[in-house]
């Protein structure tokens, strides 16, 4: 972990609806201080006496120095935990642990970066874009979603980036298609040096395939179900190829969520690849 995480009882400052998403701004000084783009937090849901005993992981969308430090979270309602979050009001408290995970690594020298985000996966890319620009990088956004209302952050992307390409599966906004259809054109047009991507596995897999095709590095932020977020439960593992060429089941919460795209065996997510370290009947150390 890049920074030591802390547990904070934050106070909700504001709640907003942004397209299909809910946005919560929470006063959480210890977390905002330590934030680097790509970090996430886990939040306790359901209040005291809740039957929901696991925390929910949410990317940090942004931080501000207001009130000693705030973090902004963006989420869609998927199940009971996110439904509860959506019901929070200003001045309610929220229990957070963070910042967690390995943030996006930054290029040493100024270069051209394409930021690919899918639905709420786009959330952590704007703070990343800010940092990249401060380092003199050119940034270009590609934001996608199933439908128009689920494209997150198009306005802000347009304000920040050299170019912004929108894509929806149903064509209701921007180009119609998938990342694989559209990303090659963006990379070619911008002469990108590096890709950052955040979204569901199939999107990351597609983006990685494209980046590999172009021979440029790609950093991806993956999402796996997480019971703890701090590296102790081993529920969040992904098959990743190490420096030594050996595939290991590594924790997305602590070794990730950001990985070099070509190291993640996307095709084998949800399996134990037969050649992974410690695979049943497979090779041993």
């Amino acid at each position, binding site marked *: 972990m890049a920074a030591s995480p802390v547990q904070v009882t934050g106070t909700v400052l504001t709640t907003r609806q942004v397209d299909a998403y809910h946005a919560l701004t929470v006063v959480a000084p210890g977390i905002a201080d330590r934030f680097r783009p790509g970090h996430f937090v886990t939040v306790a849901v359901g209040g005291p006496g809740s039957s929901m005993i696991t925390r929910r992981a949410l990317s940090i969308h942004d931080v501000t120095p207001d009130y000693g430090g705030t973090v902004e979270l963006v989420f869609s309602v998927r199940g009971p935990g996110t439904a509860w979050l959506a019901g929070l009001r200003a001045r309610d408290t929220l229990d957070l642990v963070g910042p967690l995970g390995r943030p996006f690594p930054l290029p040493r020298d100024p270069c051209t970066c394409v930021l690919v985000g899918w639905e709420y996966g786009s959330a952590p890319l704007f703070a990343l874009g800010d940092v990249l620009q401060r380092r003199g990088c050119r940034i270009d956004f590609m934001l996608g979603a199933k439908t128009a209302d689920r494209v997150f952050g198009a306005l802000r992307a347009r304000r920040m980036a050299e170019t912004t390409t929108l894509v929806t599966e149903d064509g209701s906004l921007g180009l119609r298609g998938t990342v694989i259809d559209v990303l090659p054109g963006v990379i070619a047009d911008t002469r990108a040096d590096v890709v950052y991507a955040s979204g569901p596995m199939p999107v990351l897999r597609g983006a990685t395939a494209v980046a590999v095709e172009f021979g440029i590095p790609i950093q991806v932020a993956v999402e796996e179900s997480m019971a703890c977020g701090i590296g*102790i439960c081993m529920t969040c593992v992904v098959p990743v190829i190490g420096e030594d060429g050996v595939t290991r089941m590594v924790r997305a919460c*602590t070794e990730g969520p950001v990985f070099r795209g070509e190291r993640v065996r996307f095709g084998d997510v949800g399996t134990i690849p037969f050649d992974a370290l410690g695979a049943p009947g497979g090779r041993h150390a």
Partner: protein
Amino acid sequence: MELPNPVLTAAGCGGTGRELAHFYDLRRLGAFVTRSITVTPRAGRPTPRMAETPSGLLTGVGLQGPGVDAFLERELPWLAQRGVRTIVSIGGSTVSEYTTLARRLADEHAIMAVEVNLSCPNAEDRGRVFGRDGSAAAEVVSAVRAVTRYDVPVIAKLPPDVTDIVAVARSCVDGGADALTLINTPLGMSIDVDAMRPALAAGVGGLSGPAVRPLAVRCVWQVHAALPGVPIVGVGGVATGRDALELILAGACAVGVGTAMFQDPYACLRVLRELEELLRERGFDRVADAVGLAHRPAGPGLRETDDLEESSL
């Protein structure tokens, strides 16, 4: 085995120790219990490995771990150097694997105790879980006891989903167990009604968290009643000091905290603080004075509980 306080991590729920050390000094724990170490590295089960259930957590991790060599090389020294009291949990698929593991640990001076995780399937008995069979459990325990240094206690850890927990516990004690840990996770399952598939890749998984606490209290109670001289580490659904006290009053002399750490990284310290406060309020100087106290015969005006058969209805 002398512990400065009765709150331990539950096996497999505290990572390697390094992760929790971001939050507090592990020397503040009664002891740190490792995940179950296996002979060779294990990649574990495919994901999804978790599903939330009401007040519970279902997991199927499959004992992912680096194997005993890497454990002794990288994990145990880290704990030892920091002076963390460490109980090493071991898991095997044959009696001889358990023996191998215990032998490898026998030379390590930094180990407070060996906990034998008996919730592993026995490869030599069609995958039947050791701890569901008194004689298989006893065989493992006595094999481990035989190769473990005399001053290192061997603790047998049992799952609750057996017909007669007392019988299995007694077999383990007869096999040489110095103490017992109760309970490991009972087998549970959850089905994703959208995918219409088991929620875990492994199909079934282990149920943990507050939902199982009544099962843990019952097992501790029954075993303490039958084997009052055997120290018990109570584990299962402990999230507060009250929960810990419940297990202690039922007969546990120490408690393990597992799933609660996923929700609150400081859970062990908080449970300890709350427990100490509750003990103080009740006038206990030492934990030992409260152990098993709920078994005392009912006084005047108190209700008799001991003459009733133990059926659930």
